[in-house]
């Protein structure tokens, strides 16, 4: 039952985050969605992912977002001053088309989603073992990705782009 509570929280929070005009409000609703998803991860017995979700998403990524939003200091009335109803309708229509297709695909799939799954030990130890044995190369490549992202962010935000 906890799943449905968390599902409701994250779905409502995501909808509100997408529809808020004020970017700070949107970011705050998104934090709530991250917490809801972390709860779902706990229900799904993915404890490490739940912890990382809180630490990385709600902790690091959202702080970066809020930092930039407040740095830019946007006035709400300056945003969306030129409404484009056709763009909005098109976006909603496209997403509805995706939703219909994907829901149909899930309902019609041959994968037995309702089956009782076998037990899974998914603590930090098990994840770490998988990460540092089987996925060690991907893990190392990730460090280069992060290094590239750091350098890219520094270069992009330099005062003089030459």
């Amino acid at each position, binding site marked *: 039952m906890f799943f449905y509570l968390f599902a409701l929280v*994250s779905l409502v929070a995501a909808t509100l985050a997408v529809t808020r005009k004020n970017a700070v409000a949107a970011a705050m609703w998104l934090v709530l969605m991250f917490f809801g998803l972390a709860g779902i991860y706990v229900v799904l017995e993915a404890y490490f992912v739940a912890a990382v979700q809180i630490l990385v998403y709600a902790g690091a990524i959202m702080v970066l977002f809020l930092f*930039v939003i407040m740095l830019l200091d946007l006035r709400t009335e300056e945003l969306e001053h030129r409404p484009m109803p056709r763009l909005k309708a098109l976006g909603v229509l496209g*997403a509805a088309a995706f939703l219909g297709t994907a829901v149909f695909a899930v309902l019609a799939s041959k*994968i037995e989603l*309702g089956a009782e799954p076998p037990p*899974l030990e998914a603590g930090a130890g098990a994840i770490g073992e998988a990460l540092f044995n089987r996925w060690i190369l991907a893990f190392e490549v990730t460090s280069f990705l992060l290094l590239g992202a750091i350098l890219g962010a520094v270069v992009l935000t330099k005062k003089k782009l030459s």
Partner: protein
Amino acid sequence: MSAAVVPSLALPTGWLTGLAALPALDHVVLLSVALFAVGLVGVMSRRNILVMLLSVEIMLNAANLALVAFSRLHANLDGQVFVFFTMTVAAAEVAVGLAIVIALYRLRRTTDVGETTELHDVDYGPVPVLKLEGEAPVHAHDEAHDKAHDEAAHDDAHELAHGQAHDAGHGGPVGHGGQS
């Protein structure tokens, strides 16, 4: 006196595990689909680039949820390892994306993607001709046009660029096409 039937205040054992029982995984996948659709609405119909980036985060989280659900279904940890990598990529994406937003804001004082339409329906003028080092770059105009007429032999690259410039300048390939 018989013992009063006092309703037990203690919750039945296992109530927490009952509430936190593993949900039907098709419902989890459907929630993931719904969250992805919500994020898609945000990306497609909002014009504030910050909210668009937030919506991309919603979509990445929806994908993560599906990965965890299937990882649980198959009792295979690889899905959760993949979630870890997705989060790393999301962090890198946010860092670079927000850097671009800041650069855009410095340049334009806006975060509205509707106002950054430089690449849309703009006449860039004549196409500059690519020349080797040493020669002066020829900006295709009518004088370059005439000069090219006088030259007995001109290479294909020159000819191509010239033709394009001609199109841009006069709105039609008529005239020069006959020369080649």
